[in-house]
């Protein structure tokens, strides 16, 4: 064989061998860091929510990237993702100014320019519903854990995941409690209810669920009022509520409107027998803290995703709360932050189990999730998905006591542990003023 031909054969063998080896064992491109695109309402109307999500992201990043040997939650011990050779997690946080179109643009940039592996956000159901189609068409995972609108997981999307309970679960908790309460020594004369909700997707989903569940729980709806978000006065609305005289008021409003409502109700001397709520102000730590100075929230009951009074007993909760406080200027984790951190740590677990940042691998690992309750900082019965919804997410009912703290009322087994005597009827404004205030 001529020398040239031998050389050609050798080169050909080397090329074929190299190609063959590469086909037999596809190279695991080393992941230097896992990028999470985080689109949040850091300014604008929902900024107070956005900042809690930001602090939650910082907490999750801290937990994953640093070694917390005693923290028995996903990715607590060890640095980075063991499944990815110790690669760290990095959140790329963008502010959408609480605007849907801005959120869509940001998400497109995060996917095409920043090449993120996962999108988390937006934290509010309305805007999340707007970014869902963008992420779905890009084919990477999207999660929003505190978003409670049922519709988000009822669209048949393949890339959306939510570890938190939806409004159907949580509002159902309130009505199940109200229905069962008389059998457990509660009042037997609660017959009428008024619905008082704001006008966005979150509030209206709550309203729809309540409209369906209230009659099933034995209540007659005597008034159904939808108010404008950003209302400067609710005096006439309060006037109508007063005229309708419901036994129970189902009130779903954000903190700013809740303050307007409280002032107008106080002026009118309006207070129903039961003040029931669902998220909104009831989930806002700053609102709850401020009420301690006025007894304003005493007796309000509402749905929560966890028994927050019992959570403090969990060692993991305490440690995570310490980390959270590093970022939150000393504020404790509220239930909203607990939902978000639980979700972000689940996401980290998925990435670790997938041992890859390829979308299909992440999607498969997410769908295969089966987390036990012991691995969580929240009271869910675990995490397992059906159509992107964690079917083991739960709702509890809590009530704010005279100490300004939330206490578990339902489910009954947790209520027994919490050992709290419910406040009934809801105290009048005069009684609130006359009683000692927890925060002086």
């Amino acid at each position, binding site marked *: 064989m001529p020398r040239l031909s031998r050389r050609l054969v050798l080169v050909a063998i080397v090329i074929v061998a190299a190609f063959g080896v590469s086909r037999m064992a596809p190279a695991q491109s080393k992941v230097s860091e896992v990028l999470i695109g985080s689109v949040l309402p850091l300014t604008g109307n929902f900024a107070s929510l956005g900042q809690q999500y930001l602090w939650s992201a910082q907490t999750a990043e801290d937990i994953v990237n640093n070694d917390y040997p005693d923290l028995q939650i996903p990715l607590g011990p060890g640095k980075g993702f063991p499944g990815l050779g110790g690669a760290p997690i990095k959140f790329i946080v963008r502010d959408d100014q609480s605007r849907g179109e801005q959120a869509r643009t940001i998400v497109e940039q995060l996917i095409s320019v920043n090449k993120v592996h996962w999108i988390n956000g937006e934290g509010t159901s309305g805007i999340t519903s707007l970014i869902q189609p963008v992420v779905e068409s890009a084919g990477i995972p999207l999660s929003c854990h505190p978003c409670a609108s049922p519709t988000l997981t009822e669209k048949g999307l393949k890339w959306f995941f939510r570890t938190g309970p939806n409004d159907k679960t949580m509002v159902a908790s309130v009505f199940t409690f109200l229905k069962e309460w008389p059998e457990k020594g509660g009042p037997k004369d609660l017959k009428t209810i008024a619905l008082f909700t704001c006008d966005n997707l979150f509030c209206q989903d709550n309203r729809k669920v309540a409209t369906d569940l209230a009659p099933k729980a034995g209540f007659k709806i005597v008034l159904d009022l939808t108010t404008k978000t950003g209302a400067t006065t609710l005096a*006439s609305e309060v006037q109508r509520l007063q005229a309708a005289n419901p036994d129970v008021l189902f009130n779903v409003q954000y903190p700013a409107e809740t303050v307007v409502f409280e002032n107008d109700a106080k002026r009118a001397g309006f207070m129903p027998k039961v003040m029931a709520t669902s998220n909104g102000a009831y989930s806002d730590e700053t609102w709850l803290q401020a009420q301690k100075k*006025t007894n304003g929230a005493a007796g309000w009951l509402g749905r929560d995703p966890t028994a927050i009074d019992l959570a403090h007993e969990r060692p993991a909760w305490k440690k995570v709360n310490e980390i959270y406080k590093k970022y939150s200027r000393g504020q404790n984790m509220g239930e909203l932050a607990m939902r978000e951190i639980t979700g972000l740590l689940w996401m980290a677990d998925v990435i670790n189990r997938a041992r890859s940042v390829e979308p299909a691998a992440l999607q498969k690992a997410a769908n295969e999730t089966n987390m036990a309750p012991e691995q969580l900082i929240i009271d869910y019965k675990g995490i397992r998905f059906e159509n992107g919804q964690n079917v083991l997410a739960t709702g509890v009912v809590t009530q704010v006591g005279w100490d300004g703290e939330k206490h578990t009322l339902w489910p009954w087994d947790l209520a027994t542990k919490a050992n709290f005597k419910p406040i009934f009827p809801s105290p009048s404004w005069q009684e609130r003023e006359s009683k000692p205030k927890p925060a002086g």
Partner: protein
Amino acid sequence: MTELAQALVNGLQMGFLYALVAVGLTIIWGLMEMINFAHGEFLMLGMFGAWWLSASFGLDPLVAIVPIALVMFAFGVLVYRHLMRRVQGGDPFTQIFATIGLLFLLQNAVVAGFTSDYRFVNDTLLQRLGGARLQALGLTFAVPLLVAAGLSLLLFLALYLLIERTEFGLALQATSEDRDAARLVGIRPQRMFAVAWGLGAALVAIAGAILVNFFSVYPQVGLQFTVLAYAIVALGGFGSILGTLLAALLVGVIQSVTVVYLPPAFKDAFVFASYLLIGLLRPQGLFGRF
């Protein structure tokens, strides 16, 4: 009938609060014909100032009115001198974008400095009167709102006298009507504009210090009031102080009465519908002059 009368009372009480917010805009936009989209942010600064003085030094917001008004007067003058004077002669769009920029700058600076948390003042003079009500003719009057209404009336009276009965006020009006003619009679227009901005900022900050007794404080709080304030000034007639007061009362009453009979979604729709109606019949507003 009592329902309607009570709604009228509620609306009038709220109207006085709206008037407080709108009066600063009457000076800057109505009288001096300069656009200020950051008006709500001046209100927000006043609210934050009152909250901060209350939380840090225990100063009641009603007492804090004095230092807040002084600081915000100086701030208004600075905004005019360093920003608005430069864009004053240009296209109106330049003014719009300059003040929109200022809006975002102020809002985000407060987010950076204080976070987006909702803040609340507690145990203030007006809040201690919180549950106090006067009953007359079967109607309920909330004492804190009556006090706020009284303060609002005082402020309007003072402003009316300042603009209509003093040399300074006449100079301000002259500058607004014809800057060159005013200069010929010895008025320094730039100074008048600076004082008008200072006055506008101080007035809306005073409104903020009063509103803080009734509303939570957060960086975006100004927006909901700004939209109403613009409608009120236009409805009342540009530059008319009395018109602003009456338009604010009208807006309060429309909002309040609408909700007694219709879903709350119609509340602001009827306010702006009335603005459109009056705009069609009397484009200069209720008390405005062309």
